[in-house]
């Protein structure tokens, strides 16, 4: 029981990170029907930006007392801004002019952008993993039979707050409504006066911001940033988005948590070398038996 709870908590922590990334895939897919393969690398970029800020602040001796909270906030905000702008920039430069092209063209472009980002990040940070500063004090707390670290609580709390904020943004705000309208029918949306280009750009901006949060919490949770991190994490998050039903926001969150728990439990019960097999078997099974995902509606076939 003790161990089950510990693995569950770890699965939730991992799942929170995957869910944040999966939301980025799903938002973009929802509005453009494009699988943005560069999204994982936007996450890596966010991680490195947060790392850079924290290392800089620590070198300046600013990470003490109240400075620690401010420093963490600064790193988080910088990661959010950097990833959001990067993702919006990618949309503007690489995808916008392909919006009327056959669906395969932007898809291949996304893969190309992903490789480019990976190589640029490698050029910038080198090919070895870079240690992420241990900024969040991590005493272990005993809550009933459950033992969790403070860091774990912070990671999950940050992710959940972000997701709640996203939910209200999409459901209540004017821009959120515009996003949903464009996702439903782009032409009709523009007929009622919605600026489609701006709405799509905003969607990329928000997806990037989520990747930035994920980059920060991922760096904190794993303790390192690496130029290829986004590839593996991106694939798992993509699996999560498909599992939940791609294009469906609640589905991406659910899928993220399920994939995180699957990874944690398969490592516990079968062995670490099989966790990838377990995760990607789920991708295959979902695609074969329920292509629309757990919460997705059945859509006519798209890429």
């Amino acid at each position, binding site marked *: 029981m003790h161990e089950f709870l510990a693995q569950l908590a*770890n699965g939730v922590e991992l799942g929170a990170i995957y869910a944040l990334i999966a939301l980025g895939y799903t938002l973009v897919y929802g509005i453009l029907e494009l699988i943005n393969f560069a999204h994982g690398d936007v996450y890596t970029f966010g991680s490195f930006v947060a790392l850079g800020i924290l290392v800089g602040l620590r070198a300046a001796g600013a990470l003490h007392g109240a400075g620690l909270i401010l420093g963490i906030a600064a790193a988080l905000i910088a990661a959010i801004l950097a990833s959001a702008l990067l993702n919006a920039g990618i949309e503007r430069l690489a995808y916008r002019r392909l919006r009327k092209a056959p669906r395969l063209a932007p898809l291949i472009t996304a893969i190309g952008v992903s490789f480019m980002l990976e190589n640029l990040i490698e050029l910038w940070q080198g090919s*070895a993993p870079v*240690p992420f500063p*241990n900024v969040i004090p991590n005493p272990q707390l005993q809550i009933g039979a459950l033992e969790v670290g403070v860091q774990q609580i912070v990671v999950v709390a940050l992710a959940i707050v972000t997701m709640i904020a996203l939910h209200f943004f999409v459901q209540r705000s004017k821009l959120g409504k515009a996003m949903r309208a464009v996702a439903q029918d782009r032409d009709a949306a523009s007929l009622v006066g919605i600026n489609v280009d701006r709405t799509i750009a905003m969607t990329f901006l928000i997806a990037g911001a989520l990747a930035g949060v994920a980059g920060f919490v991922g760096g904190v949770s794993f*303790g390192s940033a690496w130029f290829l991190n986004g590839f593996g994490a991106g694939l798992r998050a993509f699996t999560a988005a498909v599992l939940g039903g791609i294009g469906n926001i609640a589905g991406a969150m659910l899928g993220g948590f399920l994939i995180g728990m699957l990874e944690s439990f398969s*490592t*516990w019960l079968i062995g670490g070398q099989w966790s990838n097999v377990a995760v990607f078997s789920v991708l295959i099974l979902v695609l074969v038996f329920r292509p629309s995902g757990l919460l997705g509606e059945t859509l006519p076939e798209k890429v």
Partner: protein
Amino acid sequence: MDLPLSGADASVGTSTLDGIKLAVARANAKGVPGGFTFAVQALDDTQQGVHNPQQGASNVRTLIADDSVLAIIGPYNSNVAAAEIPITNQAGIVQISPSAVSDGLTLGKDAAMLRRANPGVNTFFRVCTTDSRQGSAAARFALDLKLKRAYIVDDNETYGLDLANVFARDFTKLGGTVLGRDHIAPDTQDFKALLLKIKGYKPDFIFFGGTTSTGGGLLRRQMFDVGMGKLAFMGGDGIPDIAEVAKKRADGTYYTVAAPNADLLPAAKRFVAAYKAKFGSDVGPYSANAYAATEVAISAIERAIEANGNKMPTRAEVLAKIPRGAKNEVLTPIGPISFDTNGDVRKPVISLYAIRNGRSSFIEQLNLSE
């Protein structure tokens, strides 16, 4: 000699070659019996930027065709050695590698296959130790440290898996308990699920077969995130740089290195000083080994010259003078060297280091005899 001197291996190849050059220069300066001088003929086994077994084999044939070549130093890599050993075995010429560590080059069926042209004769020697010896030394160190219950994790790669296998075997043989084993998938980022599982076994320590970059660094780091920070962590010569990733969290890590501690050997200090003076750079990872391999070859040749009445000896006479058993050990910067019947160092020394306050400190060393 034969080494990789260009491409990706160029820097280690060159610093290894410098070790050879230094040994030859010192021998010539001291004077060789019979008025001979030693010369280095450097051949590169790189093709298209990577060390290449075929190129190595062809280099060795070139050297053998030259009658004045009495010994070959090299190669650097195990796969090149596997291509060269059958040729030097057939020719009966001494070959000493500074760095080829794969067990199969000297041991078991694999080695017998390499020597099939001349099964009774062994011409291949190496001054480095093998993966398996390091694993068994680690098992003894662990028990010395009163660490009796191990959980073993490896990275599923050749080096890491071999090390973990030997450690598991010898640790059990010496009375330790292996609670369980796990292999990690490449590029894993989250080790907490694995660590939580290990935590349930209540081990005294985790043994890791692999390198810092294949998971050792993150594994050690994340131990703190699941409340296992105080647990000991041990590995081989793949993790001396673990503090670069795990920082202060590396404290409590033990690792083995297949060489004596340089501070304990006056010969090592002298070597480092002489190397820096001659080449103006720091010693490479295998410079000292190359120097030692060359000293062993030079001593064998010199004794063969003397035994031959100060005339040029044959290759077989040089081979006969290679130090074996307890006699004629050659004192080198990496310790006294003589070989066993397989061609491995008879008394390999394995050192144990611990990381304290983010720095490596020497704990003890073990002389592994046959």
